[in-house]
């Protein structure tokens, strides 16, 4: 079975604090956005904030999503702070 991956994007304060705007992560069938968040938060340091007190917004394939959203291969997952445009 070939490896399945998702692309993970970070924006704004998260992008700066994690010093990362994009990474690729392997996912298994049944994995949710919450699983990805837990795995990244487990890296510790600044990454812990992905499961911290500050809200983290989630989009999957450019549509707003929740931690329970299931992932498929090649999905584009994005994490970002509450929006402040306008």
């Amino acid at each position, binding site marked *: 079975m070939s490896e399945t991956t998702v692309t993970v*994007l970070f*924006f*704004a*304060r998260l*992008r*700066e604090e994690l010093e990362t705007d994009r990474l690729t992560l392997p996912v298994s069938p049944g994995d949710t956005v919450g699983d990805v968040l837990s795995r990244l938060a487990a890296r510790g340091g600044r990454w812990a904030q992905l499961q911290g007190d500050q809200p983290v*917004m989630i*989009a999957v394939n*450019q*549509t*707003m999503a929740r931690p329970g959203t299931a992932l498929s291969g090649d999905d584009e997952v*994005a994490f*970002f*702070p*509450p*929006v*402040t*445009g*306008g």
Partner: protein
Amino acid sequence: MISIQTADFAPDVEYQALRGEGEDTGAIVTFTGLVRDFGDRQGVTGLFLEHYPGMTEQAIQALIDQAHQRWQIQRTRVIHRVGNLDLGERIVFVGVASAHRKDAFAACEYLIDALKASVPLWKKERGTDGDHWVEQKASDRQPGF
């Protein structure tokens, strides 16, 4: 028309586009947001704006579709600038044309309120005491987002 751009825009060009070619437009309401010298803090000297290319445009289009369902409107223009902006510069433009003024006002205010609540755009204030990312105001939040 939706545009996310670094360049400035011109109010008279936007007005002409909203006016359209027909003669059934009775009301045009526009909102322009500018960089002002105070925000979360005093002493703001400029802004940096970031967006999520692709999703930002889609999210604005979804708001425009909702506005067309809720109100009788004819044309809309939404322009949001990104990148570095100085004091006094235009940040955002929302324009709505309608046969009726109440629909034009309601849809224009809805679009800018919803944009602030739900469209992936982020503002960083550059200031005399350093830079910081703006926090979302409780009043700009929307239930369920």
